[in-house]
């Protein structure tokens, strides 16, 4: 028996055949940020704008405006921590904190 479809995802009759995803740059539609258990926090006063984190980020989630780092795109950041690891600043301009801690901070 066919199941109700409350999420409005396409059924087998309308999906493209053969596991194809039609069109380019579709990774954009897939928000990977909710996988994260830790998130990077940007400490702007320590940042020297070397853009090392921007180069290393595997998800292009470091936001840069006018040649300067301004923060992170949490819709795509998976929380891998490479940015913090690669940050050359003594004492680090990026700090990884747990999502639990981040959510507690948001409530304050």
């Amino acid at each position: 028996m066919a199941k109700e479809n409350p999420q409005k995802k396409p059924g087998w009759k309308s999906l493209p055949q053969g596991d194809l995803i039609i069109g380019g740059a579709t990774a954009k539609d897939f928000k990977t940020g909710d996988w994260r258990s830790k998130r990077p926090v940007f400490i702007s006063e320590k940042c020297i704008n070397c853009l090392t984190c921007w180069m290393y980020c595997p998800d292009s989630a470091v936001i840069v405006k006018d040649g300067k780092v301004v923060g992170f795109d949490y819709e795509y950041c998976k929380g891998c921590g490479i940015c913090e690891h690669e940050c050359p600043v003594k004492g680090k301009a990026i700090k990884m904190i747990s999502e639990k801690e981040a959510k507690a901070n948001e409530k304050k």
Partner: protein
Amino acid sequence: MVKTNTVARTGNEAMAEAMRQIDPDVVAAYPITPATEVVQIFAGYVADGLVRTEFVPVESEHSAMSACIGAAAAGGRVMTGTSSQGLALMAEMLYIAAGLRLPIVLADVNRALSSPINIHCDHSDTMMVRDAGWVQIFSENAQEAYDNMVQAVKIAETAKLPVIVTTDGFIISHGMERIDMLDDAEVKKFIGEYKPEYYLLNIEKPVTVGALDLTDYYFEHKRQEIEAMCQSKPVIVDVGASFGKLSGRSYGLFEKYKMDDAEYAIVAMGSTAGTSKIVIDKLRAKAVKAGLLKPRVFRPFPKEEIADALKGVKALAVMDRSDSMNGHEGPLCLEIKAALFDKALNKVLLNYIYGLGGREIGLNDIENIFGDLAKAAKGTGMEKVNYLGVRE
């Protein structure tokens, strides 16, 4: 009907000739007895410039099917050939080819699976991959092997499913027969140009192939594949009919031989069907109402049509050239029983497991089976599953 050329060819040569006429974009293959010649002869055509095919000599059958999948996803018309252990090594990739709905055509020369190691015919290899999502077409002789290869291309590309065409190892693959071939140009016209709707090399219409499908999409894609298998049935019938118009040799899902008034029927695939026809002619001369039902297409299994064709018989023998190792019947017998059950046909049915590892089956064996059927129909207690010609 067009002019045909009568030639003497072995089953392997017939399949290679069909591949030459089809002239696929890519063939990736690894040699294995008794299918080696199919791709060996074809490699000769490549070397002689008779085809434009890119031939990829790979290091294993797993790689052969992987290369075929890549080439087909890129948009090519792709073929390969293998047998037995080679098909087993391909098994993982066969599921992927089918799931990605790539119309690859594979010539499989049926051979027993190890262990014990053996190079001769039985149907264990293709039966092992019967749930992989490939259309499976069995051939009775070299003529059918040739005809099926040509049709397989059209079936695969229309149904968007990969197709295996089989012959019986050595019996058909190495036996020389008189066959009628179509002209090269007629074959090319029949299969037409392959124009996939989406393919990786088309930068105008970018696609992702083989993306991860978790709990939310996998089932829907598999449901599509199941539907494609159901819908391939009319495709196979249409292609068989149009091939008939071209060549004078029509094909359906199965062949009925003297079945209209048959009381006793044999159900057999591959070369044993041919052997059965000779016995049936002999029995018919003695007024025994004997007939043959030869499933040509094992996947999809034409269950309603076959059940209807068996409706009138008093008793039938299902011939399995492999065993399911399920502790009871062979795979073809299970399919036939399921088909009969759904039409509420409770028939006297004997299963014969035969020919494993190339064990000979002769005219007298089949004649004895018809004798068994007559006894079974009269209510004589016969063994339900018989192992034909095995030493006790």
